[in-house]
């Protein structure tokens, strides 16, 4: 609806061919701005939550209760010099951050934030998300490889191992839910959940799938306890050791936007996206954004809780967890879900 009215407004002063391109650019710019700011505030949230977990205060000096701390940090990063190593592969070195940040932002385009607020309602939505989130690792590998730094390279290779392994679990746990929805399109998935959120509809296998999804999703975003990619005590800063200024900020921002994406996928697939609990506010369309963000931030908080509780895994423990535990459980769970859907013993309101 919103987009339609923008359409008419644009048509009033420019030819039809230019309108579609202008529209895309406008939407892209709006998304870019909104999610860059969101990323900044996720960093602030992470720092505050970390502080509270450790009985500290967290940033509280810049602005009211530290509100503008990360904005100040971002300004500082913009003003910093862009450095690099002498023997770095300059082209790939400069390209890598954009791979990471652009894939993160592209993934955001398919989310239905509320009924009519979805930039790109593609019919293979979930598949698109999984595919896009695996492209991000190319940026990490490129960054690590082209830095000409052993720590960066080790970090990048670990990221490759980790993402390729855990991609399986993310895909399979979402596939388990796709059996229930019968569609990959995100708006369709939300429609299905009008008769109960999928985690309720699919009861036991859905809960197992959710747990596996959160574990492997945390691993996908390279966050603790799966942060061997940038294990500070071993690798300095991992793949972005050599980056500075805004290029470092892109990596940093992408990590937080990826965390938001993982939580947003979980919200859409397991917790009914923008649907309110028991349909209490379904008559007010724009509260959908509120419910979507509320659910997403609860899951983001859960991931932060993981980060500040669990110790880092070793590489062998990481691979054992994936290949010996998550993957077999996931396959069994897939069969269980298929049986449940076949016998039609889902819970629906």
């Amino acid at each position, binding site marked *: 609806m919103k987009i339609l009215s923008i359409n008419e407004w644009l048509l009033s002063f420019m030819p039809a061919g230019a309108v579609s391109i202008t529209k895309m650019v406008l939407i892209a710019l709006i998304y870019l701005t909104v999610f860059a700011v969101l990323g900044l505030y996720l960093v602030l949230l992470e720092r505050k939550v970390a502080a509270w*977990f450790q*009985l*500290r205060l967290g940033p509280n000096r810049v602005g009211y209760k530290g509100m503008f701390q990360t904005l100040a940090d971002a300004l500082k990063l913009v003003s910093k010099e862009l450095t690099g190593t002498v023997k770095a592969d300059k082209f790939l070195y400069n390209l890598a951050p954009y791979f990471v940040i652009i894939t993160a932002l592209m993934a955001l385009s398919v989310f239905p934030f509320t009924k009519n607020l979805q930039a790109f309602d593609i019919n293979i939505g979930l598949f698109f998300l999984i595919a896009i989130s695996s492209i991000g690792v190319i940026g990490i590998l490129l960054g690590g490889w082209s830095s000409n730094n052993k720590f960066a390279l080790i970090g990048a290779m670990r990221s490759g191992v980790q993402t390729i392994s855990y991609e399986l679990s993310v895909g399979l746990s979402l596939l388990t839910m796709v059996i229930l929805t019968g569609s990959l399109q995100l708006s369709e998935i939300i429609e299905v959940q009008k008769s109960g959120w999928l985690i309720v509809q699919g009861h036991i296998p859905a809960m197992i799938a959710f747990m596996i999804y959160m574990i492997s999703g945390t691993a996908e975003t390279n966050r603790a306890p799966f942060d061997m990619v940038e294990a500070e005590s071993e690798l300095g800063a991992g793949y972005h050791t050599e980056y500075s200024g805004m290029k470092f900020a892109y990596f940093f921002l992408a990590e937080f936007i990826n965390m938001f994406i993982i939580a947003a996928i979980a919200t859409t697939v397991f917790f009914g996206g923008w649907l309110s609990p028991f349909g209490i506010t379904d008559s007010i369309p724009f509260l959908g954004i509120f419910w979507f963000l509320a659910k997403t931030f609860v899951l983001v908080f859960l991931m932060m809780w993981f980060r500040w*509780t669990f110790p880092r895994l070793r590489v062998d423990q990481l691979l054992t967890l994936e290949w010996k*535990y998550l993957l077999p*459980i996931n396959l069994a769970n897939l069969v269980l879900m298929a049986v449940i859907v076949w016998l039609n013993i889902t819970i629906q309101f």
Partner: protein
Amino acid sequence: MSYFSEIYDGIRTLLTGMSVTGKYFLNSRKGAITQQYPDNRDTLQMFERFRGEVVMPHDENNEHSCTGCQKCELACPNGSIEIIWDRVIDETTGKKKKIIDQHIYHLGMCTQCGLCVDACPSDAIKWSQNFENSVYDRTQLTRVLNKPGSKVRAGVEE
């Protein structure tokens, strides 16, 4: 079967850990351990065993309990303590007696190891809780611990 018990144990222990940090999170409003130092310098209390600097407590009669035995001077590993002492005649007994003239403490050299306080047989020196010990001139770090005109408390030496 150990496969399934391992999964159960894994989940159980992870949840235990999360409940611990969760409790911290919920209680963080009440008891943040961070001290916002320059803002609260009037009310900031150091903890009981904090080692600020060595001081010699004097009572209201300007008496301390240092007998000048020099055990602290011997115990100090880097010579931060120097005792300048003298012999006087005790008026009541008529015997010769050792008294301290100056108990000199070099805070600039002190490593806060606490061996002197442990070695003192009469508890004449102790740790103070003050933490703002920086000065503009390092000669100010050399301190005479016994106050001028002070003397040893009666009965300490018995």
